[in-house]
């Protein structure tokens, strides 16, 4: 018997029965509340969902939301900045639009907007439409902020109030389950 084999026998992995205790914490929590039949008592303000909180999927959904908002915001900014510095104003002639796409800023803006469209599609595959719509409205606030920062557009007190309302609405909607149809994706 060689020394290597002896070492292998001496340092064995812990017994299989210990493995569950060594595993990381499960990401899927126990269901909060289940519908127990027609007319079941419901204490939740939004009704009774067969609701399983999946933190990993929830985080992925918010990551897609952030990616979508960022891509659309900066895509629009690049598009606005690129078209504003063009020598001629865009008319109804298609050639002028095609020529504007040769500008690097405009091209990058269009590429970001196309990517944002795919990101929104991925988002709709995991979350409700009635969840995605208000949550992605933060993009309106980002557009106002980017306009102020880079294009020096005016942001009035009324607009700050609007931003507050949008954030409040998003916070309220964000507290509801992301997917209530149970067809796919995050619950």
């Amino acid at each position, binding site marked *: 018997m060689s020394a290597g084999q002896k070492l292998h026998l001496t340092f064995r992995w812990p017994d299989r029965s210990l493995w569950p205790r060594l595993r990381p914490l499960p990401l899927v929590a126990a269901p909060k509340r289940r519908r127990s039949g027609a007319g079941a008592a419901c204490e939740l303000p939004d009704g009774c969902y067969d609701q399983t909180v999946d933190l990993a999927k929830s985080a992925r959904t918010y990551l897609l939301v952030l990616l979508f908002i960022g891509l659309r915001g900066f895509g629009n900014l690049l598009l606005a900045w690129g078209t504003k510095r063009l020598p001629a104003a865009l008319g109804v002639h298609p050639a002028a639009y095609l020529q504007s796409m040769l500008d690097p800023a405009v091209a990058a803006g269009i590429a970001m907007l196309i990517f944002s469209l*795919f990101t929104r599609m991925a988002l709709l595959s995991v979350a409700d439409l009635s*969840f995605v719509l208000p949550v992605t409205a933060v993009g309106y606030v980002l557009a106002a902020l980017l306009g102020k920062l880079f294009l020096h557009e005016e942001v009035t007190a009324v607009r700050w109030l609007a931003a507050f309302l949008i954030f409040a*609405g998003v916070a309220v909607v964000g507290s509801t389950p992301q997917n209530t149809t149970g067809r796919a994706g995050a619950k």
Partner: protein
Amino acid sequence: MKWLLVTITVVATALSDLLQSYELKRAGEQTVTARGIARLAALVVERRYLILSIVCLAFSFFAFMALVQSQPLSFAVPASAASFILETIAARLVLHEQVGPRRAAGTLLVLGGIVLLAR
């Protein structure tokens, strides 16, 4: 004319989003990796409802552009934000999403914010 453009924008946006939501939830969870985007692009070509949704999106885009050209942004943005209401109601009735009081209240707050933002 402006109300016709608003109607086209709102209805086309709502239809596009409803079709996308229905078809993409049926397709299962999608990602935005290089492979995921290729799969999404293939889905758009393969699935009839997704093609129709892109056509609706184009209609809503051009109607909105025409609206912005003829009307001030302070009218165009809040008017087209009416699609929020239409889509939320349709999401409940057509897609059978559970829109409870909390989600409805949050959506109304966001809608109020968008209307104010356009002033």
